[in-house]
């Protein structure tokens, strides 16, 4: 049974068809060709597929594509302004918070969602925001450094 999905991705109205069993991640990657969001565990445990859904970070692999109907979605492709990277993306580069890079889009989306809520995150806020994202290169300290740097830059403190 094919469903028609009308959604908004990175500010643009988009349509496509999906099965009821299609995950939002599969819909984004395979139907709409937004390949920046990554498939990894496919069980909602690793955070590589994190997107912002109506303002909140969620795992797109365990969300129905059908739930994208009428929703506002932000993916990693929506962060940069032309050639100018988003401050969170730039901070990940500047602190060396990227190793193999596979988890990075999910991290950056989780961090963007955090910094949309507050530009003065506490260490507890940072831990909570990215505790659902796994980095198997174990570069966690540099990721935390990147989050602080991005927060400071967004708030005009650095």
């Amino acid at each position: 049974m094919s469903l028609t999905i009308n959604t908004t991705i990175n500010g643009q109205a988009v349509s496509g068809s999906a099965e009821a069993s299609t995950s939002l991640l599969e819909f984004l990657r395979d139907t709409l060709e937004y390949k920046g969001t990554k498939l990894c565990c496919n069980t909602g445990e690793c955070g590589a597929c994190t997107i912002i859904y109506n303002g909140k970070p969620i795992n797109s692999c365990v969300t129905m594509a059908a739930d994208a109907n009428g929703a506002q979605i932000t993916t990693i492709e929506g962060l940069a302004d032309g050639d100018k990277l988003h401050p969170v993306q730039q901070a990940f580069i500047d602190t060396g918070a990227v190793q193999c890079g596979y988890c990075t889009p999910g991290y950056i989306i989780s961090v963007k969602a955090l910094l949309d809520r507050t530009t003065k995150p506490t260490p507890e806020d940072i831990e909570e925001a990215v505790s659902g994202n796994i980095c198997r290169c174990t570069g966690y300290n540099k990721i935390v450094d990147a989050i602080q740097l991005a927060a400071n830059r967004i708030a005009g403190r650095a």
Partner: protein
Amino acid sequence: MDYFEPKTLSEALALLETYGAAAKVIAGGTDVMVDIKYKEEPGCLVNIKKIPGLDAIRENGGSLRVGPLVTIRDIETSSIVRERLPVFWESCHQFASLQIRNTATVGGNICRASPSGETLAPLLVLEAKAKLAFATGEKTVPFTSFFQGPGKSSAGVNGLLTEIDVPYPAAGSKGVYLKHAVRGAMDIAMVGVAVLVTPDAAKSGLQGVRIGLGAVAPTPIRATKTEAMLRGKPLTAALVKEAAQMAASESSPISDQRSSAENRRWIVEALTRRGLQQSWRAATGKEVA
């Protein structure tokens, strides 16, 4: 696979009546989508998120009424829950990751009826009730008799949970929810223990005590023999030790990839001991003597 987004409760109930065991109710999807990927597709998926009125938290005299579509994050960020039902709040705070808490619903955690469901031991000790709707009518079931086995509950295949009624504990009561898992975030509990103590007026003995155990039996359970043994007594270190051992003996855990059964019993003992000590301290300002 057929797919429906009913707009009313009666429409949803009629679908469940028609499709019976072939129908699967979906809300957040954090469990059901994994089943669809890795187990099997149901004959029919009934997405209940478009039904209005099921996503509110509201105070009702001496209890809090929580809609089944309320997300775990909604509960975690509710000041009323944090203030009036801290044991319930704690289980939602320790629940998976932020991404999952933003999506998963409390009704899904309950109706999944997993022995390790994070919110279940707290709901048992708070003596919360489930309001269920069927095509034939409504009924209210206390959570102490709601869970019938892994994945099985009083909602059956054609009922829907429409509200959770969580009474505020008696004045002076204090409780804790303690979870043992390898990772802080994301991990499923090896053991979860919820404790609620009500001291007597002199704060010298236990007027009442409730102990809920998660992930150590086919359903979440109350340690009722331990509770009965403790009731009315002054809480001493020797009594806490005896109670913790008794709670472990009331559990009937399995061995799986997360833990052996023997290890789970030890953890039940340790968490029950800590839970009683911490709750007693919070309720009386005194250490267990």
